[in-house]
């Protein structure tokens, strides 16, 4: 009885200071199987390929349909979403590792808090909070909506940051996702009230100037966000903002 199987090699680490070890798992193949469903199966039945019981694997996931951004991990060396990684399209054994640029929590789970810090640092929101009804917002024309829609697709998965050679502890680079959000909110008729603040923020250390235009971000982005276009546009806006600030004294 030759049941078709799928082989996985998973990098395990019990805590941030524990040594990393690789464990092999073998699962029965099912049609349409993706990496995240395999992770769920392994977590539910943590037995290695050689029949040894182990601890259940830890990983982040939620929506299982590439909308929440939780299950980003390195699969066969490349950062991508485990939910949209179909097993049939991957070379086996499938090597699964946590993202390398973020502090490890356990196994495949990492702490991606830095992205949220960065989004806060550039005020990536539309300021509408208040104690009274502000009424309806300004009209956004369909053309503008279409331009903004791709940018609004960001799922905060941090793949763009993981694959960026400039995003590391030396530079403290802000990363493509945050820059694209600056473009999105600067384009928004109400959000643009913070435009100057956002541009000045991005000229700080670790800001947009650290981009080396290797363009890995746009290759890796699971949502096909035009990240390099956003970096180019926002770079120009930041330069102009700094020049204006300089001349205004």
């Amino acid at each position, binding site marked *: 009885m030759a049941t078709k199987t799928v082989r996985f090699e998973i990098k395990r680490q019990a805590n941030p*200071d524990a040594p990393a070890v690789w464990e092999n798992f073998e699962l029965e193949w099912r049609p349409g199987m993706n990496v995240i469903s395999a992770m769920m199966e392994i977590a539910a039945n943590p037995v290695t390929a050689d029949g040894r019981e182990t601890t259940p694997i830890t990983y982040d996931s939620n929506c299982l349909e590439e909308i929440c951004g939780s299950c980003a991990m390195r699969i066969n060396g490349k950062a991508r979403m485990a939910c949209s990684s179909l097993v049939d399209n991957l070379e086996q054994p499938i090597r699964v590792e946590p993202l390398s640029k973020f502090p490890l929590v356990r196994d495949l789970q990492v702490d991606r808090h830095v992205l949220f810090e960065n989004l806060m640092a550039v005020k990536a929101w539309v300021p509408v909070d208040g104690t009274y009804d502000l009424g309806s917002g300004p009209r956004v024309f369909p053309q503008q909506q279409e331009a903004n829609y791709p940018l609004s697709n960001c799922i905060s998965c941090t793949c763009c940051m993981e*694959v960026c050679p400039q995003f590391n502890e030396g530079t403290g680079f802000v990363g493509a996702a945050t820059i694209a959000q600056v473009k999105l909110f600067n384009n928004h008729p109400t959000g643009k009230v913070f435009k100057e603040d956002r541009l000045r923020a991005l000229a*700080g250390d*670790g800001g947009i*100037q650290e981009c080396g235009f*290797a363009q890995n971000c746009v*290759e890796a982005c699971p949502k096909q966000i035009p990240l390099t276009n956003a970096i180019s546009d926002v770079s120009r806006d930041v*330069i102009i903002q700094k020049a204006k600030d300089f001349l205004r004294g």
Partner: protein
Amino acid sequence: MATAQSSAAHTVERGVQPLRAGQGTEFLWRKLHSLLGIIPIGAFLLEHILSNFEALKGPAAYGAQVKFLNGLPLVRVLEWTFIFLPILYHGVYGVYIWLRGKSNLVYYPWSGNWMYTAQRYTGLVAILYIGQHVIRQRFMGVQLPEHPMAAFAKVQQELANPWMLAVYIVAMIAICWHFSYGIWLFAAKWGLTPGVTARKRLGYACTVFGIILAVMGLASIWAFVGPRYPNTPENLPVSYLAAPANPGGISI
């Protein structure tokens, strides 16, 4: 072993630090590096390759070009302000940029990532080459500002060494590569080409431009090592002895 506690504390400290919004001066230094690469360094490279091209017309024409450049007003000030200091800054800061980047070409062998890496290696070749080139050709041996007509012979003697010839050829290609991709990068990072199509078009233009520059540069090298002007007579002894009395040098 309070591993749980210490690891929780580490989780916060570890990893890439968030954006230092609006703080620091890196932006200015990085943009200065970027701008200097185009002006004046790129502009000077163009001038240098065009001037070298005069070598194809022979030792006298080449000497005349060197003489003209050395006759520019405030030439020593121009030399330090627009050539030496910008190149020194661009080179040193460029190495600093390289050291802070973390190449991942092994995992992501994409074309943009290749170019990112190539820009660093060609830059390193450029700065090492330029260092020896300036020391040996500008500050050592016969002083060309005083004896411009000895220029052809000086370069020819340098290139007579096949190793040095190889260094010049490799450096010429690396520097033309670095400059043409540098133009493309400048346009992308200063927001001149925010569209994919625009970047693609400029990519083709920069490729053609880089090839033209490199071919012109290599042709000039050929002028010194080819069979047309062998053993150019204006060699060291003649220029050392005769140049003060004979500032015009040769006129064959």
